[in-house]
């Protein structure tokens, strides 16, 4: 066998790795009560401590949690941040988003490779370092960026990369490199020492001044139905991208008779180019928890979870501190603010590198300790969600809005924005513009207006809503950012005329291939075919009929996929085919007399030419001369 099967990789390095003490694994499992639903936490802890999940570990974890090894392996092999081969003591994950590539990722990678003596994808023989790529880590406004273990480094330059590598080699921890007195800093100071907020425009709802827990106090004077009526009357719609009416979602869950209800916050902000939740989690964590607490009161939930994407692990302490503070002040826990029977508490569930977990059902699966696969709908999460109980899942921004609506009233919120798109929206702007960062504006802004504000007037293309959204050209910059016109979960990515549209599209398709869960055929396989087809276009090896092929295959994937990922993954192709048709038609090679110009005989025989050490009788024309 020529390829490395996972098994070979496992037995190879296992010899040199000190064995992982079984009792330590047992102890980690016990920390989580041997609960199989905490599998992701267990495996994350093992990974953090021992830097890989060995076959033996999987057996131990399986026996502790009453599962089979293959079930544990199913989880361990699903998440990018869990590894079945030993990783270095320091893992450097270079953010491989298109924005980072345009911002000079290649030179950064080269600098790390040279300093560390390993290539991207490798682990150094002494297991000091692992160097790898990871999709968008939510730092597009300060690219190129990287994660160094749990620490985030932004605005990298080759020099800065070298400095980091040298300090790490000298034995400094990533935290020490961020600050000599890292341990003394508050969690908030630690976060802002690593990552800038880049708040460029504060709106009235979220980023302006926000009084403490005013919304929660209002909620205490209202019945659950009144709370939900208020949210519904405000016109608030989900801010993660899908835009479902929040008040109705809460009512569906509340109407479901069950022993328990759950409130989950989707902080798995994975859509490339989106970083609004990062800023909210940094600057408005209390508002988020306040919003969740209000939702809990509305639907009758006593427990909640904040699902924090693995890339935002640097914010975990900050959130934990907020939770502890609120518990101490009677804002979480039993009898909140002295109201008998109003009990609510929540935990943070760390993700481990899987975009799909931003999908509601996949997020729930992940919280349940399963691979992040979307669930079959129906039943919907509001009817049967986390552990089978009615569950409200909302985005960070949505919960924050909800808390503000309770404070300022439904009408106040409703009056902002436009018909069908009420209130304000956070826009994460990145790419070719002078002022990348976060902008809060009422819905209804045109792309032109936004571009003017961000210093992106030279834009030739704007990707609205990230890869799963819409790529528009100049002739559409008059369009408005609303649910009914250009919907976005927040990402606005600006591209100048210098950029190669097909390069962007190919990158986005590779992203979807990497992030598809693989459950259903069209998304698992179809996206690979789309990626390969775009590769043919980029190489000039596409036939004219390949344009129809792209449309046709995209249609099948959209119509037959099981969840939103596959239903939107062809969008980079479809929207650029529509808005940048010449980019494609310029690259096709028509057949001549039925002979495909796209079959390259010279490259096909090149290997054999070298191997046989002779030229071709047929295709090397100068043979007889």
């Amino acid at each position: 066998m020529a390829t490395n099967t996972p098994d070979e990789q496992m037995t190879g390095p296992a010899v040199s790795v000190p064995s992982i003490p079984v009792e330590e694994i047992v102890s980690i499992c016990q920390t989580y009560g041997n609960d199989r639903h905490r599998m992701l936490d267990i495996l994350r802890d093992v990974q953090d401590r021992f830097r890989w999940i060995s076959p033996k570990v999987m057996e131990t974890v399986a026996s502790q949690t009453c599962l089979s090894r293959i079930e544990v392996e199913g989880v361990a092999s699903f998440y990018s941040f869990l590894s079945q081969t030993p990783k270095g003591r320091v893992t450097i994950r270079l953010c491989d988003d298109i924005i980072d590539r345009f911002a000079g990722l290649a030179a950064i990678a080269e600098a790390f490779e040279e300093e560390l003596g390993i290539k991207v994808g490798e682990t150094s023989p002494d297991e000091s370092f692992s160097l790898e790529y990871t999709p968008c880590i939510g730092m597009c406004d300060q690219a190129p960026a990287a994660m160094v273990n749990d620490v985030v480094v932004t605005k990298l330059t080759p020099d800065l990369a070298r400095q980091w590598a040298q300090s790490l080699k000298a034995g400094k921890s990533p935290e020490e490199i961020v600050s000599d007195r890292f341990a003394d800093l508050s969690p908030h100071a630690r976060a802002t020492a690593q990552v800038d907020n880049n708040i460029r425009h504060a709106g009235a709802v979220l980023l302006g001044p926000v009084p403490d827990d005013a919304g929660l106090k209002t909620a205490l004077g209202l019945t659950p139905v009144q709370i939900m009526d208020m949210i519904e009357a405000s016109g608030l719609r989900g801010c993660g991208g899908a835009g479902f009416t929040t008040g109705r979602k809460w009512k569906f869950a509340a109407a479901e008779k069950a022993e328990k209800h759950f409130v989950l916050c989707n902080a798995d902000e994975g859509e490339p180019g989106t970083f609004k939740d990062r800023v909210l989690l940094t600057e408005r964590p209390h508002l988020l928890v306040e919003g969740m607490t209000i939702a809990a009161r509305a639907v009758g939930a006593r427990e909640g979870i904040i699902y924090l994407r693995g890339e935002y692990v640097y914010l975990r302490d900050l959130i934990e501190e907020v939770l502890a503070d609120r518990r101490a002040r009677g804002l979480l826990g039993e009898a909140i603010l002295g109201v008998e029977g109003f009990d609510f508490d929540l935990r943070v569930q760390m993700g481990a590198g899987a975009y799909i977990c931003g999908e509601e059902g996949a997020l729930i699966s992940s919280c349940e300790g399963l691979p992040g696969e979307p669930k079959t709908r129906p039943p919907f999460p509001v009817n049967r969600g986390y552990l089978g109980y009615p569950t409200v899942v909302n985005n960070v921004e949505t919960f924050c809005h909800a808390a503000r609506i309770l404070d300022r009233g439904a009408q106040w919120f409703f009056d902002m924005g436009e018909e069908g798109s009420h209130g304000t929206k956070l826009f994460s702007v990145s790419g070719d513009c002078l002022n990348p960062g976060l902008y809060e504006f009422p819905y209804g802004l045109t792309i032109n207006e936004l571009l003017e504000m961000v210093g992106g007037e030279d834009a030739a293309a704007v990707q609205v809503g990230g890869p799963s959204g819409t790529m528009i050209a100049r002739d559409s910059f008059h369009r408005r950012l609303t649910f009914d016109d250009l919907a976005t979960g927040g990402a606005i990515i600006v591209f100048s005329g210098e950029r190669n549209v097909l390069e962007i599209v190919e990158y986005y398709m590779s992203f979807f291939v990497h992030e598809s869960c693989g459950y259903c055929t069209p998304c698992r396989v179809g996206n690979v075919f789309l990626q390969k087809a775009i590769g043919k276009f980029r190489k000039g090896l596409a036939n004219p009929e390949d344009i129809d092929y792209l449309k046709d295959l995209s249609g099948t994937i959209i119509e037959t996929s099981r969840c939103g990922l596959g239903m939107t993954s062809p969008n980079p192709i479809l929207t650029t085919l529509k808005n940048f048709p010449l980019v494609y038609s310029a690259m096709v090679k028509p057949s001549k007399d039925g002979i495909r110009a796209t079959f390259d005989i010279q490259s096909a025989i090149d290997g054999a030419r070298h191997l046989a050490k002779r030229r071709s009788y047929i295709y090397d024309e100068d043979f007889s001369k």
Partner: protein
Amino acid sequence: MTDQDITFTIDGVAITAKPGQTIMEAADDAGVYIPRLCDHEGLRHQGGCRVCTVKANGRSVAACTQPAAPGQTVENETPHINKLRRDLVEMLFHEGNHLCPICEASGNCELQAMAYRLEMGEPTKFPYLEPSRALDASHHDIALDTNRCISCGRCIRASKDVDGKGVFGYVGRGIHRRVAVNGEDLAHTDADASDHAMSDEVCPVGCIIRKRVGFATPIGEREFDKGLIGYEIEGKRRG
């Protein structure tokens, strides 16, 4: 028919469903065949292969998991839907190594039979992904060639739910997601040739191979030489 029964139509044919039945279950009972690969009688529904995609009131859904709803109009055998299905079946052909001429499942293979039913006969544009996974012939009675696996997961459910064993499971993600065994190799699991998961009806393709019975039935006299896949269900309706 009881008071709670639901009526709806598939391609204009009136269908009666019991409460809680999926579109496919009701269709099967009525003798209307909806193509499927990952679904199998007696096993939990998965909704993964998507070959059973139908339009319910105009919306694409997987018939195997979608509950039947009163008054619903379901489209099943339309040229458009069959084209989607043909694309899906072709995707599966191209994802693995499906060389019918050398596969002992040929003639009994549901993937192949589905391709026949859906008239997969035009030159394809899909690339071949050509996986190269090691053959697992460690077990005395069973061999696994996962290059032919279509990730339907029928063996996983059969082993877990029917045999109570859990010999198989999914590992990996995306295009790397695959069926693996609960141990180093099949010989290190409690797999047995008498398991339901290993029976010839569970694996729809030539991935789970029972040793020493390969060509007992000659080509030309196999399951789908008797009729197009689905003939048994369709036979019910014809009476």
